[in-house]
């Protein structure tokens, strides 16, 4: 109760309310634009916060973070282009729903799931930081390695596609992450003496290329409109109510999202795929995933918004950022002379509790703004592809250029875009490449750090229960479809011919 009273008193200043409203508005638009995400937005706005008081500065940055975590799903659903990596899993079911003309329903599902995720995340941040933090602190490099592997396998097995294609795409992504200077001993790898490759490929360029540019090419080839027949069916409130029809999926995603989000460095990227995967396996209708299943939106969206607040737990209590955006929030704190740590809660409760209440208010604000904007967002699916595709192409590529002001990034995005178009055409899941690029370096560095801890012994990977458990789950996810197929073939030999004509799907 003290948190609410002290926090509300600190928040009552109209300046704080103004910056929350402004931050949410900016966050929604930035999050919905491919190529721009909360990292870019908060990094650009950070210098302006130098002249502000600490609480409004933090509220502005956190509101952008929270709103953009929701808004990333808007372009995922409408355009099949994730606004950021943490919204990638939403594409699997959100876009098929939009193609069926149910964009408003999909946006409603995303909005409500994100809102609940944000509220639960704030409550955990305010009241449950301790136990969550204790769990996160148990993660050594071995656990990080196992979690990265689990994330990659979860991505490969998500949806209804071919497992081996998914694993191959993750392998390509991990391979691309090797380009540049090695993070373990600092030697250049696969640079071919090119200066640009010394830094490795820009992840934003690769992501925009694989998702946005390839989608633009596909839209221009197919013509027509995103929504079949250009007709919108359903409404926002159907989607909002539908979230409550799947309580188990919602609770599972909130729990997993909070726990995984609190682990520094891994966070939302892994959480949304792991939750999608688990939701599919828990569902009574797993065959509906990939075709517009509501659970396919609820799971990733509730988890990625829970991750937003969860990633702030290690940041505020230990000074360890949960991700890039929480790192920027930490910088904002330090700029104002505030040191993160457990003492922060006792020396400046007005700031901390005001921040918690402000996040709660930001969640309500993005819910209201998102609901108001849904009709306008949904109309995008009725615009002709011949008009929408060039606008999307120009917007995405300027977003790529904006990151490092490099023309080379634009060319990289286009190369990956053309490659991604052909990959999608032949049902290779391009998301695996992006996630491999994100998790590859983490997996390699963690692996070597774990070996250094044990003097080169591999026992750390099977003696630590969490590590062994996650690696076992990963192995099971890969082997289970094969075992199931062999079992089915052994039980009914007559069905072997039918299975071999089914196209090799490993699900």
């Amino acid at each position: 109760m003290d948190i609410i009273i002290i926090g509300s008193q600190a928040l009552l200043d109209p300046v704080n309310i103004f910056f929350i409203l402004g931050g949410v508005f900016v966050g929604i638009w930035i999050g919905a634009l491919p190529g721009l995400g909360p990292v870019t937005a908060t990094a650009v706005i950070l210098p302006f916060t130098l002249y502000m008081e600490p609480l409004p500065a933090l509220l502005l940055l956190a509101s952008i973070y929270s709103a953009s975590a929701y808004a990333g799903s808007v372009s995922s659903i409408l355009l099949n282009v994730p606004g950021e990596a943490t919204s990638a899993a939403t594409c699997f079911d959100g876009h098929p729903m939009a193609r069926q003309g149910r964009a408003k329903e999909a946006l409603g599902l995303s909005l409500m799931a994100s809102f609940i995720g944000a509220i639960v995340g704030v409550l955990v941040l305010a009241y449950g930081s301790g136990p969550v933090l204790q769990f996160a602190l148990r993660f050594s490099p071995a656990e990080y390695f196992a979690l990265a592997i689990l994330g990659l396998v979860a991505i490969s097995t998500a949806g209804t596609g071919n497992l081996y294609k998914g694993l191959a795409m993750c392998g390509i992504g991990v391979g691309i992450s090797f380009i540049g200077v090695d993070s373990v001993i600092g030697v250049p790898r696969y640079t071919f003496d090119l200066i640009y490759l010394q830094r490795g490929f820009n992840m934003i360029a690769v992501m925009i290329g694989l998702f946005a540019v390839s989608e633009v090419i596909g839209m221009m080839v197919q013509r027509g409109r995103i929504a079949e027949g250009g007709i919108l069916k359903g409404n926002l409130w159907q989607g909002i109510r539908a979230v409550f029809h799947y309580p188990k999926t919602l609770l599972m995603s909130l729990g997993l999202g909070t726990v995984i989000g609190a682990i520094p460095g891994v966070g939302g990227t892994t959480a949304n795929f792991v939750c999608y995967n688990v939701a599919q396996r828990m569902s009574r209708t797993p065959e509906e995933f990939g075709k517009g299943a509501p659970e396919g939106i609820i799971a990733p969206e509730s988890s990625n918004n829970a991750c937003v607040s969860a990633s702030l737990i290690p940041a505020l209590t230990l000074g360890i950022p949960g991700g890039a955006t929480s790192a920027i929030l930490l910088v904002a704190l330090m700029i104002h002379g505030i040191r993160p740590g457990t003492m922060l809660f006792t020396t400046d409760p007005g700031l901390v509790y005001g921040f918690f209440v402000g996040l709660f208010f930001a969640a309500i604000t993005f819910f209201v703004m998102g609901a108001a904007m849904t009709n306008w967002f949904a109309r995008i699916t009725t615009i002709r592809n011949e008009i929408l595709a060039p606008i999307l192409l120009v917007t995405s590529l300027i977003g790529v250029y904006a990151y490092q002001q490099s023309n080379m990034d634009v060319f990289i995005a286009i190369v990956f875009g053309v490659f991604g178009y052909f990959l999608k055409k032949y049902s290779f899941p391009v998301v695996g490449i992006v996630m491999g690029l994100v998790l590859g370096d983490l997996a390699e560095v963690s692996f070597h750090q774990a070996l250094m801890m044990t003097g080169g012994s591999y026992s750390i990977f099977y003696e630590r229960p969490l590590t062994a458990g996650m690696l076992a789950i990963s192995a099971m996810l890969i082997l289970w479809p094969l075992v199931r197929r062999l079992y089915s073939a052994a039980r009914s030999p007559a069905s072997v011919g039918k299975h071999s004509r089914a196209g090799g799907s490993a699900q």
Partner: protein
Amino acid sequence: MTVSSLRDSPLVRRFFRDGEFTLILITGAFFLVLLAGSIGLRTEAAFFPRIIGVAGIVLVAVLVIQYMAKSVDSVSTRPAEDADNTSAASAGGDAVHDESPDPGSGQIMPILAAPAYAVLLVVFGFYIAAGTVIAALPWLLGYRRLYFLIGLAIGTVAALHICFSVLLNIPIPAGIVGDWYLRNFVYLD
């Protein structure tokens, strides 16, 4: 079996004119380069690339076997069909093959649009490149309301200029021509 009969067999034609098999080959080549590039690296730096390279080649072998099984099965059940004909794609599942006799028809211009925009961007800068693409590309794709397209191009470029240059203070590329113009006519010492 002669070389020409092998080359003209439906199976071989399908292999080499089918985009999915080409992509599998490209994937295999990538992992081979990964393995080859790890030679000469120190053990710590080469370990992971070798693991991924070997695993990738195994996966590519599995994909090739799957593909061959699928292709042999479809060729044997439809012997009279042209090798370029397609099977319908199931949602999120099987590969999509072109149905038209010329697989590239209708795809060349969309595929070339993005590289063309990149060239325009580097040479002429964002404002001219973006305006041209937004106005010209719909026209080339069959949308014939010219004045609407011109207005749309101007409006979109203006909105992006305000968003990036003004609000976010992010510089927009001026291009080679734009830089030359600014140096010689605007930023005069």
